[in-house]
């Protein structure tokens, strides 16, 4: 019987200028870390391109710190800001 791990959902947020290859680069970064992408959303707000990616990090093969370092590298290469937060922080702040 396989043991089911509970999903641990994090939201990756990308802020900056839209360009070719953002989703591709992030998808590769997450796939290499065995992180499943659950949902993607994007919008232009206050003249800024914003994209959120909901990902499940429960099966990640690297610690969160390593994953964040890899995202920082992507951010630097593409001139973006990328953050990663546990989904529960948004729920706590925005849901009564």
């Amino acid at each position, binding site marked *: 019987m396989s043991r089911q791990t509970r999903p641990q959902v994090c939201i990756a947020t990308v802020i900056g200028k839209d360009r070719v290859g953002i989703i591709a680069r992030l998808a590769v970064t997450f796939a290499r870390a065995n992180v499943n992408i659950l949902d993607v959303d994007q919008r232009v707000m206050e003249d800024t391109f914003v994209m959120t990616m909901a990902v499940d990090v429960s099966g990640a093969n690297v610690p969160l710190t390593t994953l964040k370092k890899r995202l920082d590298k992507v951010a630097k290469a593409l001139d973006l800001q990328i953050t*990663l937060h546990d989904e529960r922080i948004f729920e706590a702040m925005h849901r009564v």
Partner: protein
Amino acid sequence: MRISIEEVYETVRMTLDHHFDIRTVTLGMNLKDCMDRDLARFSARIAERIVQYGIRLNEAADQIEQRYGIPITNRRIAVTPVAILLEPLRRDIRTAVHIAKVMDRAARKARIDFIGGFGAMVQKGMTAADQLLMDAIPQALSATRRVCGFLNLASSAAGINMDAVARCGPMLKDLAYRSKTGVGCAKIAVFANAPEDNPFMAGAHHGIGEPDFSINVGISGPGVVRNVVAQNPDCDLTELSEVIKRTVFKITRAGELIGRQIASTMEVPFGIVDISLAPTTAAGDSVARIIEAMGVKAMGAPGTTAALALLIDAVKKGGAMASGNVGGLSGCFIPVSEDAGMIEAVQKGSLGLEKLEALTSICSVGLDMFAVPGDTDPQVISAIIADELAIGVVNQKTTGVRIIPAPGKKAGQVLHMGGLLGSAPVMDVANIASPGLLNRGGRIPAPVQSLRN
């Protein structure tokens, strides 16, 4: 419903641009069970506990910080008031100083920057151990870097212990001159109605009504609130209050979530969320700048008290809605040296000591982190403390004083303390001692609780 992209963006912008953080996570720690008549045995026990739990606090905070992506700026420890722990030990100043040094070394080993609790509850009277602790404060706080002290000198139930207040002026001047630049005085706060679960230094201690351990959290600083006020320049004051409430609701919820997660990781009880807005000298992280963003031309100008009253009330309403565990000081901090806007207000003359005292009648913490000339009479310092505590006692709220007599400095000069403590412009004070009042001693009785008009 999954969270919307707008909601995520709002929070992420807060962390990236407006200093959104968890200002402090403070572990309250009972040390009463370590008490002993043997100083060496007692010292070994408290050192072991502080180091062990201090390391665990840092590990848990690092882990939660990574997972939630919200910086946890300060991790601190508050212990049982040391005057209680002194009771069975030899009555010698060296004993108290030794304990401060043990606390300091243990905190350093655990990478904890401040450890609070070197203090006493003396609102009604002083035991021999309380007096010993007060006598030891100048040596203890000048010989250590991380130890913070507190004294509760008054309460609405007991009145003001003027014998203890009278000792504070000479004590603080001695401490200022022993510690270079007077920085030792930044590490001690004296109070009326001191809360037992306050997570903020210098006044943090683990009160006698507390369990063995508790995690108490201070929410984010004023930068986030300043930003929403600045973004709403045209709304009326009722609407502005709503905007502030909503923002404080969000940052309080974040604070409570992080606090609970750290408590559960450490397997200790969660205590309270303190919703005080605690400024730092970082640009934008200033309570004075909130008041100015509300429309007051300069912090301290007429209109400041009314604006601060609105701010503090909105903060309390938002916080109380967000969490059933709001506690600690939960007001608005207006320290002079730690807030760039306050420093500027003093330097350009819009804010003086008298207005600062008036503001403390509606905000929670009192006269905080301000410097007075080095030649200020010790009895003047005691009298400033008595005045401030009277505001707290009569209004049934916490007030405190953290005053720094700046050695060798005159009004208008600047005292640089460095780091988190910032720079304090030395404020003008009427240097008129009142020995006729202070030498009477005794206790100012507790105020009447009815006839409240």
